[in-house]
């Protein structure tokens, strides 16, 4: 169960500095969790299952040659996306890196548009233009999906800056990986966020590795914890057991309230784990980590299992209900594959739309002249 402190055989000794014992019952008693309805609790469960089934289906489709490029699976980390977004309100926004399917589904994007995007179809959330790494749904407060490591970190500060500028009580969560913290632009963003009191929350999803590199090999002073880099900027930070949805919610909520009430940034480091390789191309991920390590996480710290146990203990879930939810998610994913498969590819001319607002909305700009410089077109 999830209550134990991280064992010494954890993948990353650097991060196993003593955390206070994570007591699920304590976090369950946190007001933000106590206020949860049964419906909400089940929705969290369902949504975590949906992420997993969506990605399992996507993986199968990839293996059948239905898509190209990268596919970075989120499986194992589901409680982070679901837990953090489940405490957000209508004026809050999120932005993340390329491992973005979980966040997309968490904010309510449909499996259909997400799967179609992977298939490169016109019905995809980005019309097939962005692909796996570049999902977007601004209407649901989801600003991508960004391929360059840490490239989203100042953008996240910018979203939060805009809220403050407009006098809107809200916040932006910007997710990044443990490897991303070594990019300079993240530090520039932290400095700006603190200096200017920007209501941004950086969530470091520490899954132990950046591709094949553990924190000890990429980050000086890993034993302090990665979130501790916030110290230099007088930003509040905390560490979170990512397998425990109650804990994720409780600690995210503290940061959200800090953003709302004090307009101050926060950094959360959420300990989590990815079961698959870095991406579909990372076939040899057992070179840098052991089977035992993977099994340890799957058996002891699986976010869906942990939440399932909690809800069973609380009497809101039983084995049959779990099966039902599983089955529904699987079918939803299957339907999404069918949808994606049957959708058309974008017409070739689509290559040249969505490049400029002024081109797509003639008459709304004072623009003339040539904007594209094709000597000839392939279509």
């Amino acid at each position, binding site marked *: 169960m999830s209550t134990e402190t991280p064992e010494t055989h954890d993948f990353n000794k650097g991060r196993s500095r003593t955390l206070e014992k994570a007591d699920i019952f304590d976090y369950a008693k946190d007001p933000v969790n106590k206020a949860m309805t049964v419906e909400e609790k089940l929705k969290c469960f369902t949504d975590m299952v949906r992420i997993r089934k969506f990605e399992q289906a996507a993986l199968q489709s990839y293996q059948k040659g239905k898509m190209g490029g990268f596919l970075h699976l989120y499986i194992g980390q589901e409680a982070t996306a679901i837990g953090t977004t489940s405490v957000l309100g209508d004026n809050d926004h999120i932005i993340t890196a390329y491992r973005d399917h979980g966040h997309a589904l968490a904010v309510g994007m449909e499996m259909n548009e997400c799967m179609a995007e992977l298939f490169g179809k016109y019905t995809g959330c980005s019309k097939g233009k962005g692909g796996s790494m570049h999902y977007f749904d601004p209407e649901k407060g989801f600003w991508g999906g960004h391929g360059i490591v840490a490239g989203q970190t100042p953008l996240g500060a910018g979203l939060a*800056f805009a809220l403050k500028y407009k006098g809107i009580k809200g916040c932006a969560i910007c997710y990044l990986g443990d490897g991303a913290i070594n990019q300079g632009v993240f530090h*520039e963003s932290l400095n700006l966020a603190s200096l200017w009191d920007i209501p941004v929350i950086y969530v470091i999803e520490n899954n132990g590795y950046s591709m094949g590199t553990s924190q000890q090999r990429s980050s000086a002073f890993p034993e302090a914890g990665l979130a501790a880099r916030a110290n230099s900027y007088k930003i509040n930070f905390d560490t979170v057991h990512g397998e425990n949805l109650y804990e994720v919610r409780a600690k995210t909520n503290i940061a959200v309230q800090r953003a709302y009430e004090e307009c101050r940034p926060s950094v959360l480091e959420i300990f989590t784990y990815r079961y698959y390789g870095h991406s579909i191309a990372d076939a040899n991920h057992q070179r840098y980590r052991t089977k035992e390590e993977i099994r340890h996480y799957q058996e002891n710290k699986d976010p869906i299992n942990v939440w399932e146990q909690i809800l069973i203990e609380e009497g809101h879930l039983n084995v049959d209900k779990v099966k039902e939810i599983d089955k529904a998610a699987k079918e939803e994913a299957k339907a999404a594959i069918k949808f994606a498969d049957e959708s058309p590819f974008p017409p070739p001319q689509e290559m040249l739309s969505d490049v400029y*607002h002024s081109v*797509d909305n003639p008459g709304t700009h004072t623009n003339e002249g040539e904007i594209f410089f094709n000597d000839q077109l392939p279509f």
Partner: protein
Amino acid sequence: MAIITYRQALKDALAEEIERDENVFIMGEEVAQYNGAYKVTEGLWKRFGDKRVVDAPISEAGFIGLGIGASFLGLRPVIEMMFFSFVYVAWDQAVNNASTVRYMSGGKVNCPIVIRGPANGGTNVGATHSHTPENMIANFPGLKVVCPATPADVKGLMKSSIRDNDPVFFMESTLLYGNEGEVPEDEDYLIPLGKADIKREGSDITLIAHGGCVLTALKAAEKLKKDNNVDCEVVDLRSIRPLDKATILKSVKKTNRVLLIEENKPFCGIGAQISHMIQREAFDYLDAPVHRISSVDSPAIYSPPIEKIQVPDARLVMREVRNILQIKA
């Protein structure tokens, strides 16, 4: 119409747009309390306060990225680069994020940001500070690039740029800030992006330039008229992307001879693109190959008298025009 400086015209444009649209704000190093390193924003902080005129720490990637993110939610940041050379420390944010986000989101996200500042050599600040990256920036589909030469143009183009819903890189020149000229006072004086301006009509040869080189071309044209009775047509591109192909081709088809003048380094500079375009689309109208003057192909040298000739000057333009027209000097 008032006679004001390029700097003042720019400042007026900024002030008017700040006044007009509450989403417009200026951000950059020393733009507020210090009044701007080149005084473009002088007085704006006092007038509009901390919210609309924001001093940023030295972290260009951070605050450009922040501006891009803020623009997603409808703000219209105008970011000052103290020198445009400094955009290189923020290159990924400026060109990769700003140019791709609309596309990758299937049109769901807009990025109405203006990144502005001087991009010129000739001021003896050395190689690290004298870059002119308009060619590189215009290489990115999704970005717009504007390079005004006169006080009137800088005003009308800045106002259009701020109101534009796409990312605009607005490239000025420290050597132009003090120049004076007539500028319309109309608060809706907008010059369309992508519209070239024929700054001088002529029939013997077309000189094409942008930014400071427009003035160099005009100076050479006057002298050539006087010395050699040559009538140069001077086309001021004003905007690099969009580009006014029609005006360029029309002029070339009239004069049948072209000299491109730019401060860019030659390899893959703006002139290369325009040269290709002209020979491709007006091949049969050309009486001579397209000629081109750029900065000398080396990093910017410090030594003041040497840097003076490293960038295009009127003397060189005249020499080259005579060369093309086969006139003995």
